[in-house]
């Protein structure tokens, strides 16, 4: 059940589903965006997931996904920051 999983596990599962055609082993510092691993649709699903996890809407005017979401570590930091805020 997703409720029993850690936020990291849920994120990895989402990314694995979105990149199942790729042969890349996902690590915390694997480049997701700059490498092109996450396509537009994958990125869109990730953004929806972030909004669901944080319970807040993303402000696209100030968003820099390549900088903030390029790795699992980066995404978790982003989510943590928004959960605090």
């Amino acid at each position, binding site marked *: 059940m997703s409720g029993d999983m850690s936020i990291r596990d849920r994120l990895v599962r989402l990314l694995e589903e979105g990149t199942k055609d790729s042969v890349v082993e996902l690590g915390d510092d694997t*480049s997701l965006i700059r490498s*092109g691993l996450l396509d537009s649709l994958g990125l*869109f699903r990730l953004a929806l997931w972030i*909004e669901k996890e944080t319970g807040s809407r993303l*402000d*696209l005017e100030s968003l820099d996904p*390549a900088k903030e979401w390029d790795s699992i570590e980066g995404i978790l930091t982003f989510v943590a920051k928004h959960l605090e805020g």
Partner: protein
Amino acid sequence: MAKMNPGYEIVTYQPDFRKDVVELQKNLWSPDAELNAAYLEWKHERNPYLQPPLLYLALHGQKVVGMRSMFGVRWEFGIPAKRMSGICPDDLVIVPEHRNRGLITKMMKSAFEDLEKRGYPYVFSLSAGKITRLGSLAMGWRSAGSMQPRHWHSRRAEYFQRIRNIARETRFIWRYADKLPYRHWGMSQESLHGLCNPNGMRPKKIGSRISVEQGPRAGEMANLISRIGHDGRIRHVRDEEYLSWRFRNPLHRYLFLYWEEKDLEGYLVLQQYVSEYSLSKVRVNIVDWEATSLRVRAGLLRAAIRLSPFVDLNIWTATIGAETKNLLRDVGFQPVHEGVGVDQEQPCLLVRSVRADVPEVEWSLGNRRLQDMANWDIRMIYSMQG
């Protein structure tokens, strides 16, 4: 590093690929290959600002599996106006079985390298959907802001729709519900051109001043734009060449309202979608609107509403003046729900430097910062949505 799926090659369009592109576009433009061919010809092969056509194609083997097209524009800015040819990346399509393999990134990287060699400093996007918008932000594009769409909702259409729904659920009457004369009430997605004189020989008149016609008076419209003048904000050059080309889009249908006195004093252009993939045909956009006075502007707007009381009218208002915004409000235009969040389908202006090493603070045309919507004079015809 992520592995880029091997076997892909990015090439620029050559006429040999025409048939493949038309087929590929069945995923995006329309299911009708003939209509797609006409659109390709109009948008790219006849574009006045970019020849030969510039489309980046992803090949897998010899098969075209993806495409990002660029169309040419010509901006003017400053007083006196300087003019500059520009590029708008537009249609983006990948066949379903080749998605999520980094192809978009690969196509855009190739495109940016090529555009830099061709000397283009910036790229502009005025029609990104919610998925493309996010992908673009990830590739270094920045948003100048929302186009601030406003919407005039047809209460009459809603009323007749309600009557039909009630009739469908009423004993004895239900079988006649769909036979009621909805066609005359505009419920059948009737062509905008049906609002004009059907034999096309004589323009329909509204009052003594306004003519309704199916075609652009490109020369007169360009003269009017020139007479009204330019405040220096960044806008598309709307000369006779542009206007003659622009309204030939085969995926759209246009209707022109002209206000005439001694000369042309104003015009308003309505647009409707044709493709089966498009948004509802009940939705009609005001894609361009010019007038020498507020009186003429108001007259044209009221005539458009009177002419098409069964459609929903839309307009982008991000860069129009306060007087015009008040006018829209007074006749019943409401802001389309402006939420934040990725799931909002909100048209916006995206810009990017072609070179990745130019700092964002330096993105400008004639000292006008590109990411500031106040520096733009945007109309829906600049976008392929209009």
